[in-house]
Structures are given as structure tokens and as C-alpha cells.
């Protein structure tokens, strides 16, 4: 085996280990030189993304291939049939989330070269940044429940310290405190659920648990705790209120990776529902008249109800705000509502025997929207950071007429505006079209609410565009210049990817999203890769 095959074989461990090693070497290197440290951090992130791309190439080559990596051994189960080692199991959905995390990490590191240049304590900043990236990758790639909890705590501790980075302002430290209280409580309840499942089945591995689980009373308690804890970390109304505080008061490059951590928690909820409890999703719980109430129908209706609330409250609160970054954070809450809407409506119909194409189409739209939303909201936060860097103002009431001095930033904001509100030809339109069409067939009211709130999102961002960029030239902004080139490069990378996905949506849909949807609906493949020979 040559070097490339060895790299692909060990890649799940390398993807987590290289940022971790880089994080602990950064304080040593920063004692030598500052530019050397910046270059070292970018080198580590580029190396990690190269390995992610190699692994993605390997997984997409064969349909339904899963790459399993056992830590410290060669077999997944011992001779007695026990799975005792920690596994990383990478299938189509995991590598999809890893691709999103890679793009966000590259853009974030390039952006923070120039954005954080005048701050002190930058060696601690880059250390925590690489730790956050390592925690995010670990949460995405793991196949073990307790390992998921450990990486969740790593990323939340590193994120909290970075949110409170500007310690001279009281509000940022307060936002960090609120974030760590919310994260610690949610993670402790997730650990409680993992302990309940371990006590019943003597297994911590996700695949072994999925094959053994029967839906007893204690399993119902564990399901409720898992979904509530992960939904609070993902920012679903009414547990969303930490999101505007944390996203709005942190530095912009930190907010970009925070978006990745939030999406990874949403991925965790999907993995729990579809794979760990996958065999029980068609259990009949009760019977009213001649309608069987299955578990997937109940979960689907609950999730769709929460999603309608999320979309409404996200958009209504965004219309009222006057702080630039808080407004974009509320729009991010509304976009998570769209993903949950598609997944909930897919749960109600994907397992029925009469009509199977609607559910799969809704699932495709939801998963595609995860990719689009991370890029769009990320670009908007970078633009907000650029405006703050140039003018040192955060409130929209005191901005105006910036388009004359900052041409490139205005163009990037225009691209982000069209993409978030679902206007053609950007990528937001492609995924939102699929969501509208598939949720219309579940219930017409859902599609009406989704289209209405899309238009209201356009209203929100047109308000920002007018009051910040258009208008006459204000005399106090005379010497505002364009932002430095590294920030423009980071925004440019994300904008180019947005336009590419917008112009060729079918290419991305068939090659990247379709394997992820196949991995979600087919949990027996996930189980049989570890145990082998599972009876369906």
C-alpha cells in the first residue's frame, strides 16, 4: 500500500489529531514570531482539509461505502461478540458535515489573520480556535455515544472562552457565561441519557445500540432527554435565546465556527433519531380509530410544530432589531427552522407504504439546506465583521452610505442577501424550492408559512442594505477604506462556492446530498458494518 492508501485508512483519526496537535504547538511557535504562527495555523487547517478531501473521494467512489476506524485494534468486535473499542464510523452523512466544517474552518482562519491583528493575547486565540475546530470534527466523525459527549464538551468550552474574548467589554463576558451555562446543562442531560442507555444494554457504540434497542419505558425517557438537549444546542425556539447573545457579541471569525458547532449538534440529533432509534421508528404506539400512531408520525408532528414556531419568531424578532450582528443571528434561527421543517415532514411520510417519494425529497431538501445555510449566514457574518472593522460601529442607526468606499464588501453583502432569502440564481433558491414543493404535499399550510417568511427575510435584509450601504455619503465616514485583502479573500472563497452551487445545483444534489440521504434512511448498513450479519 502506498502512502495515499495509508493516509486514507488512518484519516478519521488524523482529521481530529492534527488540529489537536497544532493547537498545543501554537503557544510554543508564537514565542518565535507572529507571522510564523499565523502561517503555521493556516498550514494545519489546509493539511486537515486535504485529508478530508481524500476521505471524501474514497467514500463517494462506491455507493453506500462506510469507512470504519477502530482505535487501538484491528477488529470491530472481539471473539465473544462484544464491541469494546472506540470507533469512528464515517458514512455519507458524516463526510457531508465534514465538508461543511472544512470550508468554514478555512474561511475563518484566513479571515482572522487581518481581523484580529490589533488585539493582544493572539496566541491563546489561535490555540482555542484550533481546539474548537478539532472538537467540531470529533463531534461529526465519531460512532460512539460517550465520545460524542466528550467532543461536545470540548467544543463548548473552547467556544465559550472565545466568545468572551473581548474582555474589556462587559457584554461579551456576559454572553460567554450564558453560553457555558446553557451548554453545560444540555450536555449533562445528554450524559444522563447515555448512562440510561448504557445501563440497559451494556453498549456505548452507536451501531451495537441500534441493533439491540427495544422501545421500553426507560428508552422513551432517554429519547426525550437526547432530543431536548441537542435541540437546545441547535437553537430551536423556545430554547434559542442564547443564540443572538452569543453570535452577536463574539468576534466575527469565531461566529463562523460557532455556526459549524450548531450544525454539528443538529447532525447529532439526526443521528440519534434516524440511526440509533432507527429500527423503532415504525413502532405503533397507539391506535385511534383506524389510524396507527407510529413513533415517526408523533416525532414528525412535534418537530414540525416546533419548526413553524422557530421560523415565525426568528423572522419577527429579526425585523425589530437594530444591531447588525444580532439581526443576522435571528435570521440564522429562522433558517434552522427551515431545516427542521423539512426533516419533520420527511419523518411523517418517509416510512409510509403508499407514498415514498415525498419523504425522500423533503429529506434531500433539508440536508441540502444545511450546506446552503452554513455558507450564506457565514458570509453575512463576515460582512458584518468587515463593517465593524472599518467603522467601529455596531448599531445600524449610525451607519450609512458605505457603498462608495467599500465596493467589494457591498457586492459580497448583495450575494449573501439574495442567497439567504431564497432568490434565484443563488443556492438558497434551489434548496428552498425543494422544501416548498415537498412540504406542500404534506400540508399546504406549511408551504405557505415557509414562502411568507422567506419574503419577510428579504424585507429584513433590504432594510440592512439600505441603512448601511446605500444613501448619501456621511461626512464622518470620509476616511473609511476597503478592508484588508485577507478578509476579502475569505469572503470571496465563500461567495464563489455560493455562486457555483447556485449555477449547478443538480451536480451537488446528486453527488454530495444523495449519499447523505441514503445513509440516513438506511440504518441497517450502518449496523452491519460493525457487527456484520444483522437480521433485518
Amino acid at each position, binding site marked *: 500500500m502506498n502512502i495515499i492508501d495509508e493516509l486514507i485508512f488512518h484519516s478519521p483519526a488524523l482529521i481530529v489529531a492534527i488540529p489537536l496537535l497544532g493547537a498545543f504547538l501554537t503557544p510554543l511557535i508564537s514565542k518565535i514570531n507572529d507571522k510564523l504562527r499565523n502561517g503555521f495555523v493556516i498550514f494545519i487547517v489546509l493539511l486537515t482539509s486535504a485529508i478530508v478531501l481524500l476521505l471524501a473521494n474514497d467514500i463517494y467512489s462506491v455507493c453506500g461505502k462506510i469507512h470504519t476506524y477502530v482505535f487501538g485494534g484491528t477488529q470491530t468486535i472481539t471473539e465473544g461478540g462484544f464491541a469494546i473499542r472506540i470507533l469512528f464510523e464515517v458514512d455519507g452523512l458524516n463526510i457531508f458535515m465534514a465538508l461543511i466544517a472544512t470550508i468554514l474552518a478555512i474561511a475563518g482562519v484566513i479571515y482572522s489573520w487581518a481581523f484580529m491583528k490589533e488585539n493582544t493575547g493572539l496566541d491563546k486565540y489561535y490555540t482555542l480556535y484550533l481546539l474548537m475546530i478539532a472538537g467540531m470534527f470529533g463531534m461529526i466523525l465519531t460512532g460512539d455515544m460517550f465520545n460524542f459527549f466528550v467532543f461536545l464538551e470540548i467544543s463548548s468550552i473552547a467556544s465559550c472562552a472565545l466568545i468572551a474574548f473581548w474582555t474589556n467589554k462587559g457584554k461579551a463576558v456576559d454572553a460567554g457565561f*450564558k453560553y457555558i*451555562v*446553557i451548554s453545560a*446543562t*444540555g450536555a449533562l442531560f445528554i450524559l444522563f441519557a447515555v448512562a440510561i442507555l448504557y445501563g440497559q444494554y451494556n453498549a456505548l457504540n452507536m451501531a451495537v445500540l441500534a441493533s439491540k434497542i427495544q422501545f421500553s419505558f426507560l428508552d*422513551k425517557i432517554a*429519547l*426525550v432527554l437526547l*432530543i*431536548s438537549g441537542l*435541540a437546545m444546542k441547535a437553537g430551536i425556539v*423556545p*430554547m434559542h*435565546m*442564547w443564540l*443572538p*447573545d452569543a453570535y452577536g457579541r463574539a468576534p466575527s471569525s469565531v461566529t463562523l465556527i460557532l455556526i459549524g458547532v450548531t450544525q454539528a449538534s443538529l447532525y447529532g440529533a439526526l443521528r440519534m433519531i434516524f440511526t440509533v432509534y432507527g429500527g423503532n421508528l415504525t413502532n405503533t404506539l397507539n391506535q385511534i380509530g383506524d389510524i396507527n*400512531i407510529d413513533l415517526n408520525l*408523533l416525532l414528525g408532528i412535534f418537530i414540525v410544530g416546533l419548526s413553524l414556531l422557530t421560523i415565525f419568531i426568528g423572522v*419577527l*424578532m429579526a*425585523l*425589530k432589531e*437594530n444591531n447588525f450582528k444580532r439581526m443576522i443571528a435571528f435570521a440564522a434561527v429562522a433558517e434552522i427552522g427551515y431545516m427542521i421543517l423539512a426533516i419533520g415532514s420527511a419523518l411523517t411520510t418517509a416510512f409510509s407504504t403508499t407514498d415514498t*417519494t*415525498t419523504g425522500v*425529497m423533503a429529506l434531500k431538501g433539508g440536508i441540502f439546506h444545511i450546506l446552503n445555510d452554513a455558507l450564506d449566514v457565514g458570509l453575512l457574518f463576515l460582512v458584518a465583521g468587515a463593517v465593524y472593522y472599518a467603522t467601529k460601529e455596531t*448599531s*445600524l*442607526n449610525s*451607519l*450609512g452610505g458605505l457603498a462608495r468606499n467599500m465596493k467589494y464588501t457591498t457586492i459580497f453583502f448583495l450575494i449573501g442577501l439574495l442567497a439567504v432569502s431564497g432568490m*434565484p*440564481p443563488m443556492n438558497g*433558491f*434551489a434548496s428552498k*424550492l*425543494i422544501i416548498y*414543493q*415537498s412540504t406542500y404535499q404534506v400540508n399546504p399550510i406549511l408551504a405557505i408559512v415557509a414562502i411568507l417568511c422567506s419574503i419577510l427575510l428579504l*424585507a429584513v435584509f433590504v*432594510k*440592512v442594505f*439600505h*441603512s*448601511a450601504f446605500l*444613501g*448619501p*455619503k*456621511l*461626512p*464622518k465616514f470620509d476616511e473609511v477604506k476597503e478592508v484588508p485583502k485577507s478578509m476579502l479573500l475569505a469572503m470571496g472563497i465563500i461567495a464563489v462556492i455560493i455562486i457555483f452551487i*447556485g*449555477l*449547478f*445545483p*443538480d*451536480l451537488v*444534489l*446528486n453527488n454530495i446530498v444523495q449519499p447523505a440521504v441514503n445513509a440516513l434512511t438506511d440504518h441497517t448498513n450502518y449496523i452491519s458494518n460493525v457487527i456484520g450479519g444483522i437480521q433485518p
Partner: protein
Amino acid sequence: MIEIQDFLRTLGTDSGFWNPLVWGIIIIIAFLVVYIIRGYGKKEYKKQTEQTKVFLSGNPELEKEEMHVKASNIYWGFMESFKWLYSGLDKMHTGNVSDYILWFVVIMGVFFIILGVI
């Protein structure tokens, strides 16, 4: 592998037709038509006279700082008519971390009752 025809396919939805390249060509043709019609111009247009000044319904033009509509005043009509909604929403977003955990416990309780009873 990825061929050139993969780049040109329409989006694979059940109904409806969305092909970005066809749409792009239509937009370019429409833009050219509009541009040519605009290029004909009007006969009564004379430069450097009263016709090129800003018209503000007879009001005098103030200095630049006060001419710009501020962000909190743009959607004034919408905000006024929905004051009953926003007073309730504002009281919900207090900024107090204990209330955040209270909502978490409420949702957990609702979910317990739904799974337990039904």
C-alpha cells in the same frame, strides 16, 4: 466521473422546472431588450437645468446627515400595527439565563407528556 452534461441538468424535483442556465440566458436577453429601449431617450431632456435637481415634494434639502432614513424608522408602520405582538415577544427575551433553562424544562415536560400519554 463527472461529465460536462452533469453541469447542465435541471434540478431534480418532482414538479416544476428550474434550470439556472436557461434562466440566466432569459435574464440576459430581457436585460438587453430593456437596455435598448432605455437607450432611445426622451426628447424633452435638457441637461444642467432645473430638471436634474432632487425632488422632495417641495421640502427643502437638509444636510447629508439628516437626509438618511435611520434603520429604526424604516418599517415604522409595520412596527406600530404589531405593537401588541412585539410587547409580548420582548418580555420573553429577557436576557436572564434562568429563564432560558426554564424554557428547556418546559419543552422537556411537554415532550414527556406527549410520548407518555399518546
